[in-house]
């Protein structure tokens, strides 16, 4: 299984966002359309939020 897993940071973040978004959309929404909408919202927030934080941290030295 380890060979199938990404080592690229962005891909790992996508995998995490996918799992978390799927989980919460199943947990919090009852109907299919509502689930898809919630999934898109959470996934978008995680991925775009992560990218935003990454860019905000960009000016800071290592």
């Amino acid at each position, binding site marked *: 299984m380890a060979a199938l*897993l990404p080592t690229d940071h962005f891909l*790992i973040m996508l*995998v995490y966002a996918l799992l978390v978004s799927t*989980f919460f959309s199943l947990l919090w929404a009852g109907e299919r359309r509502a689930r898809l909408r919630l999934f898109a919202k959470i996934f978008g927030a995680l991925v775009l939020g992560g990218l935003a934080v990454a860019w905000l941290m960009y000016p800071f030295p290592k």
Partner: protein
Amino acid sequence: MSEIAAASPGRAWTAVLLAWVFPGAGHWFLGRRKRAIAYAVIVTATFLVGVSFQGRLYSPEAGAPLTLLATFAVFGSGILNIAARLLLDNPHGAILSVTYEYGCAFLLTAGLMNLLLMLDAYDIAAGRKE
């Protein structure tokens, strides 16, 4: 506690306990079969990704109080956590691994997800949720 849970507390707490033992087991017990399978797949996948990334299965450490919280979170995974601790050569993870921090995040998330599933199982058994 709601009236329904008070009337059949055994059923509610059985669902909660099963939900802790294995992700989705509580929902399966309550008859939500499709949802149980979905939760089982998602939480188990998250846990296995964390193990594959060589994340750490936390245990309490003296002088590090946050490890208590981390241990509580990881133990939320139930039998997955226990089996991993017994079967893995190094349950402390590989701190020098590039994916170590990600592994820790995935393992903590899997445990916390399952804790939410325990609460959800109780809500369903108590009639608060369909």
